[in-house]
Every structure is written in structure tokens, then in C-alpha cells.
């Protein structure tokens, strides 16, 4: 989801409308307080965060480090600290063209990032464990012993994996695991 965090109602509403027009598919949520933002952060995956400086100064920054962020700046100070590679500045008093430009670029980037992770999200964490083990050449029995589950459970997981990925063979799963960096070259074979 896309989160817009600022105490200004008019900015929240305005940005949400612009983004909706540019990118109708994604869920947009507006929050007005730092506590609300932290709660969202813990419960959901935030694909793109637009956040005002005052809210950002009231949250635990380290838990937001990995989120693609646009900082909303409502006045132009002489000096702005660039504190994170993941964040970008949006001046609220900027021209229409440059605001749209920044939003478009970030939405495209968000799309690219999330499509890179999509393969991970199709499988559950447990299923990912199983793929890793299968791709590393372990038998169902070995996997069951290693993960403390029954062979029957391993087989059920494998059936679900095949159905979700459309990959039936062990060598196919190995290719999948390597392409998605679930295992490293040399872990297999």
C-alpha cells in the first residue's frame, strides 16, 4: 500500500487524489499522526511512504529505513540534510510539472521493486524453506527431519508449491530458487 503521513488534511487529500489518478490500482491510506504510522508499519507492507518532516521526526527512524520514502517539505530551508538513500524530497510549493514528475518516477520505482519481490510473496515462508531444501538436493525425508515436520506435510507443501509456481520438477525448482536468490550458486548440485 501507499501511505501518506502528514498532519495537513488538505495535503493528504490532494496527494491521494493525484496518486489515484496516476496509479489507480494501489491502495492509498492517509494518516495524521506518528503513532498511526508506526501501527501501520507493523501491520502492513508499505510500498511507498510520503511523509512530512514533523511526523518523520516523531517515529523510530530505523524501522522505516528500508521503505521507499518521499519527504514532504512545506517550506524551503537553506539546507536540507539527505539522510537516506531511500528517500527523496517533494516540495509542496513546487510546480505541477516537477511534483508530477517526482510522483511518477517514484510510482514506477515502487512498481519495479514490488515486482522483484512478487515471487517471494506468492509462497509462504514455510514453502520458501521447502523450496530451498528441495533445490539444495534434499529428499522429502531429509527435509522433514531437518524442519521437524512429517514427510506427509513436506509432500503437501510441495504439491502447493508446484501448483503456485507452475514448476513440477526438482531441477525446475532449483532454477527457480537460484533465479530468486533463495539459494546461492554452488549450494545446489
Amino acid at each position, binding site marked *: 500500500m501507499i501511505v501518506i503521513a502528514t498532519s495537513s488534511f488538505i495535503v493528504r487529500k490532494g496527494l491521494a487524489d493525484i496518486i489515484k489518478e496516476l496509479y489507480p490500482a494501489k491502495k492509498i491510506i492517509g494518516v495524521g499522526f506518528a503513532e498511526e504510522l508506526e501501527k501501520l508499519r507493523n501491520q502492513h507492507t508499505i510500498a511507498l511512504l510520503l511523509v512530512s518532516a514533523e511526523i518523520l521526526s516523531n517515529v523510530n527512524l530505523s524501522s522505516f529505513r528500508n521503505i521507499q520514502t518521499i519527504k514532504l517539505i512545506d517550506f524551503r530551508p537553506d539546507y536540507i540534510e539527505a539522510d537516506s538513500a531511500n528517500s527523496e524530497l517533494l516540495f509542496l510549493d513546487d510546480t505541477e510539472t516537477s511534483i508530477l514528475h517526482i510522483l511518477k518516477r517514484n510510482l514506477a520505482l515502487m512498481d519495479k521493486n514490488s515486482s522483484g519481490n512478487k515471487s517471494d510473496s506468492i509462497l509462504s515462508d514455510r514453502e520458501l524453506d521447502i523450496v530451498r531444501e528441495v533445490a539444495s538436493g534434499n529428499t522429502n525425508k531429509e527435509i522433514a527431519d531437518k524442519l521437524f515436520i512429517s514427510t506427509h506435510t513436506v509432500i503437501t507443501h510441495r504439491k502447493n508449491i508446484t501448483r503456485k509456481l507452475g*514448476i*513440477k520438477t526438482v531441477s525446475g525448482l532449483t532454477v*527457480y530458487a*537460484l533465479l530468486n536468490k533463495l539459494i546461492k550458486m554452488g549450494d545446489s548440485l
Partner: protein
Amino acid sequence: MQIKKEMKMADAIHRNYLLLPVINRLGIQLGFQDKTIEKVCLKQNVDVEFFLTILNAYLDTNDKSSKQLQAHSVKDVVSYLLKTHSYYLERIIPEIENRINLLIQHSQLNKNEFLLVKNFFEEYKKELYGHISLEENFVYPYMIEIADAYHSKSLSKTLEDKINSYPITSYEKEHSDIEAKLFDLKNILIKYLPTPNDSYIRNRILMELFTLEQDLNDHSRIENRVLIPKITQMETALIALKK
């Protein structure tokens, strides 16, 4: 609608271009003007009834077409299947290989990603070759031996032993892993390799794979629905002869 001998050969191709390699295998080459299927077959010395049955079995996958094929001699059907083998080995597999090699030249795949696809295809190829050589060296000769014995109504002791220890059904159709690998390869190319700037070469590979798959399906359909039931019947008749 079935393909009939009065139909123009060119119209059969227009109906489904996938028949192109099929008619080649049956001994027909292009450039047949506006002649009917019957005339072309006559001129190029091809059994028109067999020709029609193979084409119709390719287009129409229900049991009725398979039944028609059962009327033809085991030898004819096997020799057609042998030609499909050489088409795979000499044409389609090397072509897919070439395209996979092109993939690295024309895309930003890194070397490791490319090698994954290449190795996977190598594995598939090895299994396909193994399967083909099993059929050519054991299964088909056995089928022809059975058919010969059946028609001459004479069963040698060695053949009797073979029937008892390795009947045709014991060559369990282990097509399954080969089919699964082909299926996986398609999904790896469609879904899991990194997005290229341009999908053209990957599309070409996929089209070849889809065509190969369809051809392989036709091939195993002929084996499973035509040859195996027919040979099983002959085996039973031959054993009964002895009693």
C-alpha cells in the same frame, strides 16, 4: 471437420499450419500447386489413407481418430513415429539450442542466469534422447517383431519368453518427467527469468517449445492409444496360439 482426400493439400495447411512438419514426415514436400490431397499423395507415392488418418489424428485428439489409425499396419505407424524422432533430434532441438545461445547475446541476462536455462535445457535434452533411444532400440523393434509373428501366426520360443517377461505394457510410459520438464522450462521463460528489454528471442523459444509440446503429445497419443492396445491384443492372440 475431417480432412478428406478431395480437399486441396494447400487448404489443409491453411487450416492448421502446424501440419507443415507432419506432411513433410509423411513424405510430402511443398510446391504442390492446387492439387488435391489424393493427387499429391499419388504423385509422391504416399499412402493417401494413412496420410489422412495421421493428419486427422493430429488435428482431432479424440478416440475416434485413434481408432482409425489402428487399422493401419504397425510398421507404418512405427516408421512415422521414427520420422517424428528425427524431426525432434535433427531440427527442432538444435533450433531451440541455437536460440537459447542467442538469448545471451541479445539480452542483459547475466552469465549465471543464462547457464541455468542452458543447463536445464541440456538436462531435458538428455532425457528426451534417452527416451528416444529406448524406443528405437527396444520398444519399436519389439513391436515389429510381435506384428510379424502375429501375421505369420508363428511364435518362436524366444519371442514367447519376451512376451511373458517383458510385455509391451512393461515399457511403462515414462513420458511424464520429460513432459514436466518441458512444462517447467516454459514457466521459467515466461515467469521467472528477469524481464528483458525485448522479449522477441524468448518469444521465439517459447513458440518452439509450445509446438514441440503439441507434437510430443500427438506422438505419445499414437503410442498410448494406437500401438500399445494393438500390440497387447497381438500378444494375447499369440500366447493363445500356443495353448
